């Protein structure tokens, strides 16, 4: 048994981290809020394509890097840390490997790899995060995976204004696969990507808060020296520290298609969702009033956290674990 990132995984993670620190600072996330600076956001997408990230999970013979889900976890954590305001996780971790696995009947993959085609994933109903920026939408419903071009687009105002969400009318054709295993794998990859981003967002909010309470002085001392503040942050850290290995383990389970992989993904989603939500509340509270403004950067990461955590479908994961543990399904009298 062994459970540590290897040197290659660390090197790739660090390269992504360094690039995003430079190219996706808080100002770039703000540029994605309306009216914003669409050109700056589009430039970031091209930078990510130049790194080869959209082919990360695509086999080498299809022009990708040939990485597995385990390798994606640290990368996606960095995407979360930077709150990249683009459908990076959707395109890189879900759509691109699906296109490769199905032989890319629509001929979309070259554009995805080149950074000219963005793919969003339809959420519940007709709400599509990044729908305003997406060329294609992946719909995972009714045991089918469809990749379609939207028919109509209506912008939606959202709490996290950098999500470019839209209500889309989608055509019913465009099935890429109805192989249940592959459709489930897409759903699991999407959940894993969300969990990993939540970990990164949590870390970002923790870093901001630790920095702030270490310098902000009240009663003649840094507020981070007060136990009431210290203990809340210790608890928030605890949640993140205990979620991280579970998310990494879920990535490994997916990469190796283990029998417990869906269960492991659910564990990861529950832990990461709780940890990130707790971190968001703690971060705002420990900042005080400055944390309750849009002038300070914290809200960028808290709002992304809420959006991603809400998209996870906590109940469905609890039901899945209930089934695995032979406990009754929810929703009974």
């Amino acid at each position, binding site marked *: *048994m062994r*459970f540590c990132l290897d040197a290659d995984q660390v090197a790739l993670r660090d390269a992504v981290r360094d690039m995003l620190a430079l190219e996706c600072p808080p100002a770039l996330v703000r540029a994605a809020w309306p009216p914003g600076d669409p050109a700056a956001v589009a430039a970031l997408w091209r930078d990510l394509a130049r790194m080869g990230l959209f082919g990360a999970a695509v086999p080498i013979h299809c022009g990708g890097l040939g990485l597995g889900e385990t390798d994606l976890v640290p990368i996606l954590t960095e995407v979360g840390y930077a709150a990249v305001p683009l459908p990076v996780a959707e395109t890189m971790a879900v759509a691109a490997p699906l296109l490769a696995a199905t032989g890319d009947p629509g001929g979309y993959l070259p554009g995805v790899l080149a950074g000219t085609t963005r793919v969003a994933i339809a959420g519940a109903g007709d709400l599509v995060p990044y729908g305003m920026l997406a060329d294609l939408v992946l719909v995972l419903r009714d045991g089918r995976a469809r990749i379609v071009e939207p028919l109509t687009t209506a912008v939606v105002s959202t709490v996290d204004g950098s999500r470019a969400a839209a209500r889309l009318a989608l055509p019913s054709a465009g099935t890429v696969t109805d192989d249940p295993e592959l459709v489930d794998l897409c759903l699991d990859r999407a959940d894993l990507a969300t969990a990993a981003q939540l970990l990164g967002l949590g870390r970002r909010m923790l870093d901001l808060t630790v920095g702030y309470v*270490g310098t902000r002085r009240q009663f003649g*001392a840094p507020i981070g*020296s*007060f136990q009431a503040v210290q203990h809340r942050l210790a608890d928030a850290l605890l949640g993140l520290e*205990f979620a991280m290995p579970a998310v990494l383990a879920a990535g490994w389970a997916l990469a190796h298609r283990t029998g417990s992989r869906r269960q492991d993904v659910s564990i990861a989603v529950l832990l990461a969702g709780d940890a990130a939500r707790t971190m968001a509340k703690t971060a705002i509270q420990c900042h005080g009033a400055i944390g309750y403004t849009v002038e300070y950067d914290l809200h960028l990461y808290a709002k992304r956290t809420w959006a991603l955590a809400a998209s996870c479908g906590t109940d469905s994961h609890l039901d899945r674990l209930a089934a695995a543990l032979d406990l009754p399904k929810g929703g009974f009298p």
Partner: protein
Amino acid sequence: MIDLVDTAEEARFRTSARAWLRANVPSPPLPSGDTREGFARHVEWERRLFDARWSVVSWPERYGGRDASLWEWLVFEEEYYAGGAPQRVTQNGIFLLAPTLYEFGTPAQQDHLLPRIAAAEDLWCQGWSEPEAGSDLAAITSRAVRDDAAGGWRLSGQKTWTTRGAFCTHLFGLFRTDPTAGRHRGLTYFLVPLGAPGVTVRGFGRLDGDEGFAEVTFVDVLVPDEAVLGGVGNGWRVAMSTASSERGLSLRSPGRFLATADRLVALARSRAEALSPRLRDRVIRAWVGAQAYQMFTRHQVSAMLDGAQPGARASLNKLFWSELDIELHETALELLGAEAETDTAWSRGFLFSLAGPIYAGTNEIQRTIVAERVLGLPRAP
């Protein structure tokens, strides 16, 4: 690299541990090891474990171990608790004192003490807290005075909340050897036979009513120089090494919590007709907590094998497992409904779990350690 399955060697180890435990774990379970009668039965069990070389698997063979890797030790712990094997009444010696002996003991101390610990010949308890020094451990006043004529040290003072002190044969603890030095300085770590003249042990009831606590009084107790572990005046550093073991992985491996979580799920299944959605979700989340602890420790073991020292991060373990243990038991009691007030393994386990956030440094102390030494926040005033 990540590989979360047993290697062939680990799998062989697991199979062989499981087979031995299946054939040997006492049934029905032993009475509580925190009673006089139960303790004696547990010591018999510990000697059987030792005879079969399962008492200290990760130790060198010359001390009665199997030279097992950290992974194999985790595997053994999983199998041990999954098999319903008894609590380890030797835990203070095996999991707390021994790691400290490996780090700070002289070769003579190691050769003499470690085999006796492994074989449950010497049964160790801790001597940290005093009536006026609990969380504030550096406030201890028990002292050791050099007696050059007798060639040793004379101990005086009182220790308390000493777990299983009434049944043990030896105590390790902190004594003040330099009354003029500052709080954390001038302390020395001593190894004391409880049978020495001048030692009085009085057992008393813990929250569960068992005589699991003791107060230990020292009146002019003479111990030789060999009773000093890690050097005169170095006691704080040595004690913190023991405390790190107590908070971290070595005392509380995931095996016991995984086993408790599985028993909780079995209990919930047996009451499926009365299981509300809320309680079902509580059971699932408690079970998820145990899985999280397992993944965390696996990650930690890998980091340790790569040379990382857990240090203050042991406080993260302690916070997590102690609160997880309470949650697992509270959830079980809620499942039991009105039956929860009866004396059962779950109600006893619940009372025991409440000690977790207190011993080894209260969780309030642990949160402060995490904040200051893991997060790097400014020190509390």
